């Protein structure tokens, strides 16, 4: 049965990675909220209500894209996208790691937004929408690496 073929499995792996990123993002949001509550503003990055909501919106969207990929895997409706899935998986994994380590809210919002746009292009089977977020994501991750090693 084609339901258990290789392609759905790759989609599932990518969706798993997006879900894991959403988990990290959620941890991060809750940490910020707790800091805000304790009024430890000087230490770390506390979150205002509005920022928390905006970040949570990204988390929801990541989960939605993951779920969209799970349906695709279930109905094996997605044709080849012209991008190599291993590359996407690697980038998604890197983004996932970065979200866990990141401090600055602005960076967090930027990376999760790019990851999101990438996932949306895949889930909607629109390869033409994939290039821009992919480039931006690569750039952000590279900049982050440069700062970290500096």
């Amino acid at each position: 049965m084609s339901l258990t073929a290789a392609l759905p499995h790759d989609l599932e792996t990518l969706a798993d990675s997006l879900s894991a990123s959403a988990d990290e993002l959620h941890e991060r949001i809750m940490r910020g909220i707790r800091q805000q509550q304790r009024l430890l503003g000087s230490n770390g990055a506390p979150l205002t209500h509005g920022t928390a909501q905006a970040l949570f919106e990204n988390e929801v969207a990541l989960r939605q894209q993951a779920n969209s990929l799970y349906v695709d895997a279930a109905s094996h409706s997605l044709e080849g996208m012209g991008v190599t899935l291993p590359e996407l998986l690697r980038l998604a994994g890197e983004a996932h790691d970065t979200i866990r380590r990141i401090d600055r809210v602005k960076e967090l919002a930027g990376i999760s937004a790019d990851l999101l746009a990438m996932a949306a292009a895949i889930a909607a089977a629109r390869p033409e929408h994939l290039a821009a977020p992919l480039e931006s994501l690569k750039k952000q991750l590279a900049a982050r690496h440069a700062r970290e090693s500096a």
Partner: protein
Amino acid sequence: MKRYLCILLCLLLAACASNPRLQEVRALAGDAPKLAGFNELSQRFRDTYQREQPYLSAEAAQREEAIDRKRHDAYPDFVALHAAATTYLRALGALAAGDTFNYGDQVKQMSEGIKAWPDTGLTDRHVNAYAGLVRLLLRAATGREQDKAVQAMLREGYEPLQGTLDAMVTLLRYFNKNHDNEQRIVLGMLEVEIPYADAPRDRLLSALARSHQQEKLREYRLLGLRHTLAAQNINALRERHAALYRGLDPLPAIDTASALPPNTRSAIAKGAQP
């Protein structure tokens, strides 16, 4: 007349009871309702949006509508998988039970039913083979022929059923992961918002939200367990079916083929030589 039917039935049942394989096949078929968990969880998967909607922002709701359509589009395939597996098991059980009284109707229903589900992995070849086997039993309902018919059906149906059950387990894994994300969207929204409802005038809101949060936690924990149980049930059934298949008599190809009517002969021979 009724009494004769009863006696006949008793005799048939007694004849069946003497054959352990037929007993096992009947027990396996009797477990077909355990696949119902898959159906319920498919429905729950299909209706994800309905449950998530109150917790979504306008933009998120809009995004979800597209995913909702995909889930609804895929749903008939899930139902078809379940229907194919249960129909096969029911037919197998009917053969093993020697329930000859309404075979005509059953055969008709079975072949009509299966033909109504394209893309289920059950081809015309299988449908014809089932129908032929059941018809065969109508003619010769002796214990020996019945056992042969059951064995032939186990052989013929082995790969389609294993493949179908395998697909169902894979789907359950996707359903469960989808369920996890739904849970985290719903509970996460409450978790993010509740800390900000801490002003004195929000006390009522905060209390209701916390109580709702507890309820939802319980619901999702229970559903998580149901996904696990449904997958376990399918795997157990698959294992028992495989064990029955492994225990089949070695097939003397010429003997069996000549004992069957011509329309089933080719179908069975194909399935018998993997």
